Structure formats: structure tokens, C-alpha cells
């Protein structure tokens, strides 16, 4: 048995009602005038009755009991007494704010349902979680239901995959103490295997969110892009990629290929349709894959958009950042170790040009002026303090840059102890800032006796080093929301908000373009076949309405009204004062 006000508050309220009625009962004096032959005996009788007791006798206890009962019933109705079996269980309300809730006013309707539902739950046993990109508690146990409305003001669904399952897993693992009911308000449901693995004392149900019939019908035939990415061109061209786009349609109807734009300009090429698959789910969603081969890429932003559009806009568009596959032009000073030239020769991303042919990067000995004022990989003499020294431009963090390049350049793969033993010098790496990027390395290290040029790190050092010097972005390109991007410490959203990652891994939780440290970019897109295909909406094991059970509040009000009528009748008959 629970109430929306909590056990203590309800008891205090009942006590207050009893106390108030007690005072009113004591104060209440409504005398009926009766003319009698004499008041002689009555006056004396009152005095005699008073003299026998210390305090005045409590008058009309049945009237008092009737009033307290009526007041108590009304108070319990106000407190929404719940005597159903549900009252002995915790209730977790998961408010879906994923992509499917963005259509029309569905999320607002879901919020209204939640605000209507919450007051009927025990105040100490209800927990409401807003399942947006980062599921968060919007009403903790013990908090007043009115806070829910305040905390939902301004919230809206976003183009993100469902996080209901994540929230459910987290809550069950951390906070579940008693048998509980999980109520999902929205379309999303956990995966079937998760539902099957729920503890036996956890009941999960879903509340349908009302929507207009037009919206519902549109959702039933929703189509969206469920996969969008690139891969190395099957033709073998290093500077080209093959593009894949998968379009899924929930209901019947023709599946249209997406229209592509490159940095906002029409691409002028169309996808090639290849094959159609049918989902194994009961929804009967169909998917078609479209391919585009040999697309030259130089770091542009590629957008695929479905023509027409539907109620779920979040999956109608997908974007990715193409890799920058332009060759880096490198000018190499003569008389340098030949191992460097061999690496450049086999790397399709690099090409050696003359110093006069507008190179992007130069390789030279330190202190020289070969090829002019360009980012340079310089071979230094033994006088330099650091074996490796990275110079970054103003605005970059030298420490962070060095840390990033340490791995990417493969410096960790160098047998530094052996080199230090042979050179009898400390092998160290340093970083600083300068007018342009630069990497300085001891020239002695290129001798074969130190085993640097023969190590597996050397090609990586040359190739990555030269690309970094040329400013080539090593973009991830595209990432579905929720995927994991490795080696990222900081990420910046389009709005400028900085996200510091944990464990050098970044997971975009909402659609949009993210800037990653090291100059990389990634465009996160929904790309969720479950959302587009409406699979979640059909996985409803139980409608919550059936779980509401017996509502005693109307009966409390009815009983209170009946007692009020009885009191009125007794009052009219003069049986009670």
C-alpha cells in the first residue's frame, strides 16, 4: 500500500486531519434553543457534571469518528492511496526520447503520459529516467511529482538510437532492490534477448503514445538510411573510395535511392541498386543497398538524403567525411638516407617532387634552406637534446601533440634501450611550438647500426610524419551513433561543447559533426535499422494499461460522499449537532 505523498506524509496528513477535527469538534458549539419549564435543575446538573471530571467530557465521539473518517478518506484519495499489488513494487518509468519520438508531438504526448502516471505511483517507489543520448534521472524516489514537469520543460526527442535498453540495464544492475515494474513510454523496447533475460520479478510493459492517424500511417511506411559508409575502392585506386548506403523501409512501397551531395553541391552521380533483403522481424521491413564506386575523395563532406521525406526525419539523411586521399608532395634533399626515399616510393599517399614543384613537405638536414620555408622533417646532428622533437604551430598543445604522435609515429616500437646503449645518450622526445610544423630526428638514427630504419616503425614514422606535416586529416569519416571511435581524448560538438572522453574512446551519442583531437572529424548519423524499420514499436510484451490494476481512489471518494450524506441526514434529523 503506497500513496503519492509517501507513507510519512500521509500519516502526518491523517494525524493533522484528526487533530483539526478534534479542535473543531471541541470548539464546535451549535446550540438548539429549547424553552423549558425551569432551568433550575439543569444549571445545577451542569455544575455537578463539571465537578466530577478534570476536563470536559469528549462529546459525541461517534460524530468525531464520522468526521475523521470522512476527512481521512478524502485525504487518502488526495494522496492517491494505492492498495493494488503494484504498490508493493518499485516502478521504473523509462521515457523514450529517441529518434522515433521526434515525429510530431509524440514526445510531448509521452511527457504528458508520464506526468499523469507518476502521481499514481508510490512516491518512494517511483523512478523516472529520460532516455535521451545519456539516460538521466528526471524524478528520483521521494521527489515530488511536480518536479518531473519542471525537469521536462525544454526537453525534446533527438535523432538518436534508443537508449531504453541501456537505461534499463544500468538501473537493474545498480538500483533495483525490490520487485519492480518497468514502464516504457514511447516506441523503444529492449532487445528480445534482454527481455528474455529479465529477472522473474521484473515486469516490463509499454505505454503507447498517441499520435495522429496520419503520423501513424506515415510511420508504418517509414524509410530511412540505415547504413552509410565508405571503403577502399575495389578498383585499387588509392585516392578513391567506394560508397555504401543502405535504405530500409518499414512497410510497403518503393525504396528510393538517396541523393548525394558533396560539400553541399550535387554530386552528379547516382547510386547503383544492388539486392534487397527482408527483415526477419514481424514488421516485414525491407532493406536495399546502394553502391557508388570510385569516388575521388579529398576530405569533403558527403551527404546522402532520401527524396520526399516522411514523419521521421532523423533517418532521412546521413553524412560522412570522406578521407583526404590527395598525394602529399615531398621534396627530399639529396644525400639523405635512401631508406626514406624507399618508403616514400612505396606509399601511394606520397610522391617525391622537385623542390621547385611546390612540395607540401620537405625532408632535409637541419639548418639547411632546401625547398624554402615549409613544414619539414629534419635530420639533426648529435648536439640536439632530443632524439625526436616535434614542433607544432601556435594554438596546438605541444604535449598533447607529442603524446598523439608518439603512438601514431610508432615511436613506441623503437628499441630505445638498444639505441641509447649504442649512442650512449639518453633517447628522449620533446615538443615545442614554431611558425610551422616540423619533426626533427637525430641523423645518426638512420644508420643501420641502430636498427631504426630496419624496424617496422620506420615506414610508419615516415608516412604518418609526412602526412602530419602536410596537414592531412586522418578522419574517421562516418560513425553510427553509439559506435566506438578509438584514440580520442577530446571531442568537440558543432555547438562548441568539449567532451573529454574516458579510456581514449569516444562514442557519439547524437547525430552531428564532431571534431576530434588531432584535427580529425567524424559525422555521426542515426543509421539504426531498428528505429527506421519500426521494429522496436512492435516489441511490446504487455500494454501498461492492463497492469494498472485496481484503483481505489474513486471508491474512497464514493465512500466519503456516502458518509457525508449520512452525516447530512443525521444532522437534519437533529441526531448530531
Amino acid at each position, binding site marked *: 500500500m503506497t500513496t503519492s505523498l509517501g507513507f510519512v506524509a500521509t500519516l502526518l496528513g491523517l494525524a493533522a486531519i484528526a487533530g483539526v477535527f478534534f479542535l473543531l469538534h471541541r470548539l464546535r458549539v451549535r*446550540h438548539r434553543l429549547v424553552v423549558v419549564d*425551569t432551568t433550575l*435543575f439543569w*444549571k445545577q*446538573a*451542569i455544575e455537578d*457534571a463539571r465537578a466530577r471530571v478534570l476536563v470536559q*467530557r469528549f462529546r459525541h465521539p461517534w460524530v468525531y469518528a464520522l468526521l475523521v473518517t470522512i476527512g481521512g478518506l478524502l485525504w487518502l484519495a488526495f494522496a492517491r492511496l494505492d492498495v493494488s499489488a503494484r504498490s508493493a513494487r518499485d516502478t521504473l518509468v523509462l521515457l523514450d526520447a529517441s529518434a522515433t519520438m521526434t515525429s510530431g508531438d509524440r514526445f510531448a504526448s509521452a511527457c504528458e503520459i508520464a506526468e499523469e502516471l507518476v502521481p499514481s505511483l508510490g512516491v518512494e517507489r517511483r523512478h523516472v529516467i529520460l532516455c535521451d543520448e545519456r539516460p538521466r534521472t528526471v524524478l528520483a524516489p521521494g521527489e515530488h511529482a511536480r518536479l518531473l514537469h519542471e525537469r521536462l520543460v525544454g526537453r525534446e526527442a533527438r535523432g538518436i538510437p534508443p537508449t531504453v535498453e541501456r537505461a534499463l540495464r544500468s538501473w537493474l544492475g545498480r538500483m533495483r532492490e525490490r520487485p519492480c515494474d518497468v514502464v516504457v513510454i514511447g516506441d523503444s523496447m529492449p532487445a528480445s534477448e534482454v527481455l528474455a533475460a529479465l529477472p522473474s520479478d521484473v515486469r516490463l510493459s509499454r505505454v503507447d503514445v498517441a499520435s495522429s492517424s496520419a503520423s501513424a500511417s506515415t510511420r508504418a511506411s517509414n524509410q530511412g538510411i540505415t547504413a552509410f559508409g565508405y571503403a577502399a575502392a575495389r578498383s585499387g585506386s588509392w585516392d578513391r573510395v567506394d560508397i555504401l548506403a543502405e535504405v530500409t523501409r518499414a512497410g510497403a512501397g518503393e525504396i528510393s535511392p538517396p541523393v548525394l551531395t558533396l560539400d553541399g553541391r550535387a554530386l552528379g552521380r547516382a547510386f547503383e541498386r544492388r539486392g534487397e533483403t527482408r527483415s526477419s522481424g514481424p514488421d516485414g521491413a525491407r532493406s536495399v543497398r546502394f553502391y557508388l564506386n570510385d569516388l575521388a575523395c579529398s576530405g569533403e563532406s558527403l551527404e546522402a538524403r532520401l527524396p520526399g521525406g516522411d514523419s521521421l526525419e532523423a533517418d532521412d539523411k546521413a553524412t560522412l567525411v570522406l578521407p583526404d586521399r590527395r598525394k602529399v608532395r615531398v621534396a627530399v634533399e639529396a644525400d639523405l638516407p635512401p631508406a626514406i626515399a624507399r618508403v616514400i616510393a612505396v606509399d601511394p599517399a606520397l610522391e617525391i617532387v622537385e623542390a621547385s614543384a611546390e612540395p607540401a613537405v620537405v625532408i632535409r638536414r637541419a639548418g639547411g634552406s632546401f625547398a624554402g620555408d615549409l613544414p619539414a622533417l629534419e635530420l639533426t646532428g648529435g648536439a640536439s637534446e632530443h632524439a625526436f622533437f616535434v614542433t607544432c604551430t601556435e594554438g596546438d598543445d605541444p604535449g598533447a601533440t607529442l603524446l598523439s604522435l608518439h603512438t601514431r609515429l610508432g615511436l613506441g616500437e623503437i628499441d630505445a634501450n638498444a639505441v641509447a646503449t649504442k649512442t650512449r645518450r639518453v633517447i628522449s622526445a620533446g615538443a615545442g611550438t614554431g611558425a610551422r610544423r616540423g619533426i626533427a630526428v637525430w641523423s645518426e638514427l638512420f644508420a643501420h647500426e641502430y636498427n631504426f630504419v630496419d624496424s617496422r616503425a620506420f615506414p610508419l614514422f615516415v608516412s604518418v610524419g609526412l602526412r602530419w606535416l602536410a596537414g592531412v586529416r586522418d578522419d574517421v569519416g562516418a560513425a553510427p551513433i553509439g559506435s566506438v571511435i578509438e584514440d580520442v581524448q577530446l571531442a568537440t560538438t558543432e555547438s562548441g561543447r568539449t567532451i573529454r572522453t574516458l579510456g581514449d574512446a569516444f562514442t557519439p551519442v547524437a547525430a552531428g559533426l564532431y571534431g576530434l583531437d588531432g584535427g580529425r572529424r567524424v559525422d555521426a548519423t542515426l543509421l539504426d535499422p531498428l528505429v527506421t524499420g519500426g521494429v522496436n514499436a512492435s516489441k511490446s510484451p504487455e500494454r501498461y494499461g492492463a497492469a494498472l490494476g485496481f484503483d481505489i481512489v474513486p471508491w474512497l471518494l464514493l465512500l466519503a460522499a456516502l458518509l457525508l450524506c449520512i452525516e447530512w441526514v443525521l444532522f437534519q434529523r437533529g441526531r448530531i449537532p
Partner: protein
Amino acid sequence: MTTTSVTIPDLFDPEFLASVERLKLIARRVAPSGSPAEKRSKQQGSGMEFRDYRPYSPGDDIKAIDWNVYRRLGKVFLRLFEEQRDLPVYVVPDVSRSMFHGDVPRIDACLRAAFAFAAIALREADSVGVFPFSDTLDVALRPGSGSGRLLRVATSLTKVEPGGPTDFVAAMRRFSAMRLRPGLVVVVSDFFDRNGLEGVLDAFRSVQHRLCFVQLVRKTDAQPNLEGELLLQDCESGHESEVSITPAVLDAYRELYRKFEDGMTSFARKRHAGLVRIDVEDNVVDQLAQLFESGAYVL
């Protein structure tokens, strides 16, 4: 407040008079003055009923000498006869406001009881006077006897008007001041005096007449059927009392009323006075018969 609904035809109702016919006042002693009647007087003289002998003394009426005794005994004795004299009956009905209150006002029973006593007395040639009282005492009909007296008594009784509050002390003081011939004072009242029982008893302690109390009661006097939060208003004084009717208050009331009745009974016994309680909602004469043991009220 209303006047009495009892009319002369009501009082002369044949059935009522027939029931009164069965009743009779018998006085053991009657005051020596007054007119000859059917009551035995302390005075021994010219009556018809022999009572005793006594030796002759000079000055005695020689017609009373019993010569047969003188012939047998040689001594002169006088024959003494018991003189029959009338018993003045002073009917004192209570006409205070409380007597006129209620659905069945006590005044109706009061007048019937007063008229019954008057009828009984006049039937035996006694003199009857009517003295209604409330906070004072009036002379509605001076004591007298005769065949037409009963109509005058009835007329005077039906003309009574509601008076003020009950004040036995003032009323009896005025009654005593009249210096009437000793007789029987029949007080018909509810005996609700603003001074309580003590006021009633104090008033009658100084009365030199024989007393007969006719207490007019209702069942609700002893067992009130009131409940709830009440503002009780005294119909005579207008005094208001807030009362919460609780079992304790009811118990206290009943105890006080019982003491009141016991006080009246005790006083009547001490004064060798008659006391009869008449329920105003029942037949008056039938209840008066309780007082007239075997049809006669022996004083």
C-alpha cells in the same frame, strides 16, 4: 404563552362531577369557629352526635345535664355532644408562566384538580376560597359556601390569566397576612420556584393551615428526552443556559429531580400534609383518588 383552554362546561362535565362525587374530605379536627357543617369540631356543644360526659360545674347549661345518670349515681354530669363545623378549603392554584407552557400545559390539570377539591368541599357544606398565585397571590373568590358557590368557583378558575414567575415565599406571605380561619390549603402547582426546593419549604413553614400539595408533573420532568447541544431557556425568567446533554449531565439532572421529589415528600410527611403527584397528561380525578384513600381524604 396561552391562557387556559378549560371552560366552565369542561369543569361541569357530568362524568367529571360523577367521579368527584366519590371523593370526600374528612377532617379529624376542625377549627372551633365557623358555621356548622359536616366536620367534627374540637368544640363540644350543640351538635347531634354524643361524645362524652363531664361533671357539672357552675355556669354550665343545665339543659345538658343527664338526669338519668343523676338518678342512678346521684351525681350531676353533663352530656357532651360533638359539634359539626365546616372546614374552610382554600384552593391555591399556581398560575405562573410555567403552568401555561408546553403542548399540554399544566394549568388545565391544575384547574381541574382545584375545581375537584372545591366541588368536594362544597358538597360537604364547607366553605371554599380561590387564591391563584404566581409571584404574588390574588383573591379570586373569597371563602364561602352555598349551593351556587360551585359555579362561582368554576367561573373564577376559568378566568385565571398567566402570571409572573413562581415565588412561593411572596405568595404565602400574602396568604398568611389575610389571617383566614384555619382550614385546608390546597396548593396545586409544579412547585418550580426560582429559589428551588428551599424556597418552597420556607414559604410553607410559616403557614398555620393544614396543607395539601397537588404536584403537577410530566413524565419528562424526571426523564427528560433532550439531547444534543442545547440552549435551554427558562419560560418564566427567560434565563438561558447552554447545556451539552451528556449521560453525566442527565444523571446529575435525574439525581437533582429525585432529591426535589424526596424533599417534597419529606416535608409533606413532617407537616402531616397531603401530597399527590398528578401527571398532567392523564386523568386528573383518577389520580386524585390516590389521595382520597377509600374515597375519603382524612385530614
